């Protein structure tokens, strides 16, 4: 017969229970990291949490909207006049841009270049930033049900913000440009020189790597997406060069950039529902993006 332990050690901590729960937690972590097999558990818990997340984000939203109202009241007249002026300018520009677009299309046809696929945008609200020291992410209010796919770029009016890395039914997680090892292929707008920008972690400047020491780059050059990856549509502003340190040896220049979009203080973003053209060599979103592998540096 087993005897129960003496009362001194019987403190109520079920060690065997802890053991099983620890094994369960480790199993879940392995399944999650190695095999991405916990999507159902995740989406179930996310479903339970979603209404609470919305509820909890309400006070902040109300506060900020009140603040906006107060600011708006002061400068309403001014902004209305400014906006009317800018609308006039924009209508002029847009009428011109239609001409340019058709001209561009015809020229591309003549040259037998690929047509750039048009894409739609989907406005989304930022629900919150997850408190997570290992990554820079946003949770936005659009998900699978709204037609968002993994790997879709996310931007605001200033430029690219990040990329969708995890999908739920009604929300999705966006890895910011700042996320360590987030990569985005870019092109210098001035001279169409290509490169790749890497994220360097929270509040650190982005790095433009693999550029020769003698490349034609300058502080203040604006960088936009090049579109050769088939994930980001071409021509969207990404960052601006803030510092160039040219090395004496042959190791290449160290170039820091600042993202144009304000990554931490915007309220709304747009998901770009971008699919590369059907004639393109890689019509489907590459498998590597579905696996989020492009967010890891190749070791």
């Amino acid at each position, binding site marked *: 017969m087993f005897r129960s332990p003496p009362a001194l050690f019987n*403190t*109520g*901590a*079920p*060690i065997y*229970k*802890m053991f099983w*729960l*620890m094994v*369960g*937690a*480790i*199993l*879940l*972590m392995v*399944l*999650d*990291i190695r095999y991405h097999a*916990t999507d159902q*558990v*995740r989406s179930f*818990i*996310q479903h*339970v*949490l979603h209404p*609470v*997340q919305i509820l*909890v*984000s309400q*006070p*902040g939203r109300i506060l900020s909207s009140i603040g906006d109202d107060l600011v708006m009241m002061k400068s309403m007249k001014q902004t209305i006049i400014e906006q009317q002026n800018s609308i006039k300018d924009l209508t002029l520009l847009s009428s011109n841009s239609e001409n340019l677009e058709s001209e561009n299309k015809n020229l591309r046809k003549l040259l037998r270049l690929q047509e750039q696929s048009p894409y739609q945008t989907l406005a989304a609200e930022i629900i*919150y*930033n*997850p*408190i*997570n*020291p*290992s*990554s*820079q*992410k946003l*949770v936005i209010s659009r998900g699978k049900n709204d037609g968002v796919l993994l790997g879709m770029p996310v931007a605001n009016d200033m430029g690219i913000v990040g990329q969708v890395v*995890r999908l739920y039914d009604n929300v999705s*997680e966006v890895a910011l440009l700042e*996320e*360590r*090892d987030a990569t985005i292929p870019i092109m210098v707008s001035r001279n169409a020189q290509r490169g790749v920008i890497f994220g360097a*972690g*929270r509040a650190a400047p982005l790095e433009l790597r693999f550029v020769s020491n003698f490349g034609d780059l300058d502080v203040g050059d604006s960088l936009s997406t090049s579109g050769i990856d088939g994930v980001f549509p071409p021509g969207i502003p990404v960052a601006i060069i803030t510092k160039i340190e040219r090395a004496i040896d042959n190791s290449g220049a160290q170039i820091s950039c600042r993202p144009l979009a304000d990554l*931490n203080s915007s309220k709304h973003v747009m998901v770009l529902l971008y699919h590369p053209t059907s004639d393109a060599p890689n019509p489907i979103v590459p498998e590597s993006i579905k696996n989020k592998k492009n967010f*890891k540096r190749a070791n």
Partner: protein
Amino acid sequence: MKLNFLMGMTVSLFLGFFINMLPWGNHPYIPDFILPILLYWILFFPEKMSLVLFFILGLMMDIQTSSPLGLHALAYVVGSVVMSLWSRKLLTNSPIGQLIVVFQIFLLIHSIIVILYWLLIPSYVFSIYYILFPAIVELCLWPIVRKLLTHPGTFLNGNKL
């Protein structure tokens, strides 16, 4: 009494979880507001604590912070078991001694979380302050939480400990 106790425990834990869900921004030094509440309930009711509840809470926290599933769950379970092993000893200590022991457990839980991040996420940069800062803030919250939860009439319906 039993119903009140369970209600107090779940209500206060989920309250802590809601506080965690507030838009704090993504700063690595933000504390985990559940931990003082969790440790309070284990300290005074080590026989009645429910490891599965803490496990589920940890899973919810993982989804909320978009970290690998099971990371916070593991830390909460280990921390709560250690706390329950020490709970009798802790209550006999002087107030300062109690604070030191509680601080050790906060440190333990945060170091489990940080070490797991470091092991699982290759791009994670380890910093000792990611363990120290949240633990210090939680230590400051501990007396407040304890005062609030032991206050007669709030959760325990007049049954003062």
